[in-house]
């Protein structure tokens, strides 16, 4: 077959309206980052170290946001991610410190628990037709309850495997005067950052390059149409919640490496932070629209605000919450605008 497809110009390709939200996120990130660079450039805001720290301090949110993005694209929501991540931490802490298990065994158990709970919630949502909000709220209470059953005290994680994994890092180097030297100020990436980046890549691959991923978009666009088009709606939805469970557990591992303890009340409200990351990353809460690259910048955007406040030094950290709230509001308004203006063309 001969193709008559006209070569699309680069301009038409990148001005495709479906990318508006992602552009908005990336644009606003660079505006705020540039603002910080202008104000605190002399204090070291523009260093690679500051930039890399954005990843290090928020990797666990980012890992969870990968799964959350998929759930939101189907038009669902998952409120259980914070509690499941916290429970993962409890598994590792209690397992290594009290039961003297190897952390990998604990992680395996946590994976079975997280993915299983995700799949179960997916089944309840699809087959019993219970709204995702209610189902995952139940999942959240369940996981949080099990956390407290295990222990109501914070448990420190002391295990050589965890210690070595947490302290493992790659220093960023530069080539100068014939040899590789560490850049100054010293910057490094750790296991969490690598896991975050890998999850973003996996997420992008799933969403853009697999039928499963495209089915996620189709379901979010119009679930009834998707099923009339013969797409496996039920299977896809259940698997998405299962995958999100996996992401929650990975986020929990990442958080455990970050704080090296398990606490039954850790990451309370974490699910909302994760949803915020996805939404300011351009994912539509009504489903059907969202990109992993947007979520990546959503995480960076959400974490650059506290960084700014730290550099300022005079502002209370609560201003960060207020700024995040305003940002979220802004993005929801942009979304509303994009949705109404694109449907007006009909």
């Amino acid at each position: 077959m001969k193709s008559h497809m006209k070569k699309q110009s680069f301009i038409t390709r990148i001005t495709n309206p479906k990318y508006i939200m992602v552009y908005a996120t990336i644009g606003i990130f660079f505006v705020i980052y540039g603002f910080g660079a202008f104000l605190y450039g002399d204090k070291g805001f523009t260093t690679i170290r500051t930039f890399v720290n954005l990843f290090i301090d928020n990797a666990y949110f980012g890992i969870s946001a990968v799964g959350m993005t998929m759930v939101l694209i189907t038009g669902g929501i998952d409120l259980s991610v914070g509690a499941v991540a916290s429970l993962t931490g409890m598994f590792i802490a209690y397992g290594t410190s009290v039961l003297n298990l190897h952390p990998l065994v604990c992680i395996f158990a946590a994976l079975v628990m997280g993915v299983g709970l995700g799949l179960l919630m997916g089944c309840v949502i699809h087959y019993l037709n219970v709204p995702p909000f209610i189902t995952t709220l139940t999942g959240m209470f369940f996981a949080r309850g099990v956390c407290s059953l295990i222990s109501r005290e914070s448990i420190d994680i002391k295990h050589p495997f965890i210690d070595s994994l947490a302290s493992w890092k790659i220093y960023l180097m530069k080539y100068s005067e014939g040899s590789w030297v560490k850049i100054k100020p010293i910057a490094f990436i750790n296991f969490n950052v690598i896991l975050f980046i890998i999850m973003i890549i996996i997420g992008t691959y799933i969403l853009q390059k697999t039928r499963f991923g495209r089915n996620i978009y189709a379901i979010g666009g119009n679930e009834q149409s998707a099923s009339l088009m013969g797409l496996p709606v039920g299977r896809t939805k259940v698997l998405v919640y299962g995958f999100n469970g996996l992401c929650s557990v990975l986020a929990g591992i990442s958080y455990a490496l970050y704080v090296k303890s398990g606490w039954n009340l850790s990451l309370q409200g974490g699910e909302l932070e994760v949803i915020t990351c996805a939404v300011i990353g351009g994912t539509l809460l009504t489903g059907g629209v969202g990109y992993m690259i947007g979520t990546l910048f959503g995480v960076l955007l959400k974490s650059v605000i506290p960084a700014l406040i730290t550099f300022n030094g005079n502002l209370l950290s609560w201003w960060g919450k207020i700024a995040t709230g305003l940002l979220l509001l802004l993005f929801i308004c942009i979304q509303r605008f994009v949705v109404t203006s694109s449907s007006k063309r009909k």
Partner: protein
Amino acid sequence: MSEKNILEMQKISISFPGVKALDKVNFSLREGEIHSLLGENGAGKSTLIKCLTGVNQKDEGKILLDGNEIQPSGPHEAMELGISTVFQEVNLCPNLSVAENIFVGRQPMKRGGIDWKEINSRAYELMSRFHLDIDVTRPLSYYSTAIQQMTSIARAVDVKAKILILDEPTSSLDENEVQLLFDVMRDLKAQGMGIIFITHFLDQIYAVSDRMTILRNGHLVGTFDINELTKFELVTKMVGKDMDVIFNLQRAKVFKDADYMLKAEHIGDISHINDISINLKKGELIGFAGLLGSGRTETAEMLFGATRAVKGDIFIDGQKTQIRNPFDAINADIAFCPEDRKRDGIIGDLSIRENIMLAVQSRKGFMKPMTKAEQTELADKYIKLLKIATPDCEKKAGELSGGNQQKVILARWMADNPKVLILDEPTRGIDIGAKAEIQRLMLEMCTEGVSVIFISSELDEIIRCSNRIVIMRDREKVAEIDGENCTQQDILKIIAEGAA
């Protein structure tokens, strides 16, 4: 067109609780044929299609595809057998690109991932076969309904369909878009595809069809070559004969010099109705006749402000009145009983009393609530007046029969003392006795000076009640005739042939 049948449906019967939806209906489709399926609402067209696509299971009969018996269990299996359906509402995903909508679920793969280049170029090729030169990578929602419709046809065609079912694909298209669709249909026909075409627009049937099959009340009226029937004969066969039940009703008396209660001059909204004028005298009943989709409901909704008229003037009681939304209309004493009472009219979870007092209360404003005693008095008055069959006014409206629900809606608006009452298919789906009752009530209101617009698909009841009859066709008013001296034949003739 060959004589070979690719599809044969033999003696299909389907029953739903209380209704025989299809009764031993035969249907056949030839290779390379466009076959229209006709009938008024409830005739069984969609049931037949649903049976063919496996949505509804038949009780009796056989479906033969290329001579082999098939029994599809759902649309997906039917699609795999080569039966594709394009529905009236576009059943695609608005957020996905045009190209992806065509290929989702069966995307070509390359090196472990979806081959987007292939998808986009093949989609572009398909759409250009339909003479559409568009950017297929843009989201579907970016394009007009016509292009969306073409996209669903492209999807249906690309799965190598033998049979394409088009269920009212033209109802949201404009004239040029319809022609474009027809070109595509003729193209596909030339390639040997069998097409089942369902539409309410008679001209379109004659424009593209080879044969037509007419259904009425679940029975097969017959299959005819397109030249075999005139439009007039076709409409007669679709609508059927007079109801032989005798209604003893008196037409409303309108005084010659009565004032005009409602005058609408050249009103129109952009999308549905272009230009229509209606004059309604005090105490007069005007019937709106016409097939489904002829613009009756759209006109009524415009008069009530449910869709906004963007041009023309409306005069109520001689006063020029702006009607921008239903609130304005209610303030101008216009009441409207919509077509689908379950969806738009009755609130099933509220009691009869609450349903009746709604309109009165909303006019009084929520700052001045009616006491329960007042409400009960009001409700009881109308229950008695309209003979609503219920033990008391606290019964939930949703538990009443269709006819009684209709009476509750009537009571709601009667209690509000409207000057103009618009009733859209008030007698649909209720039994003969209740029909006569509703008609009697309408006429009683006319004698009290209320002006009524009565929309119905049943010509006999229009003729029985109306002082004047407005006949609509293809979203235009084609004639206005005197109600007293006309027959069904006259109206059918106008509906079939256009202006008198």
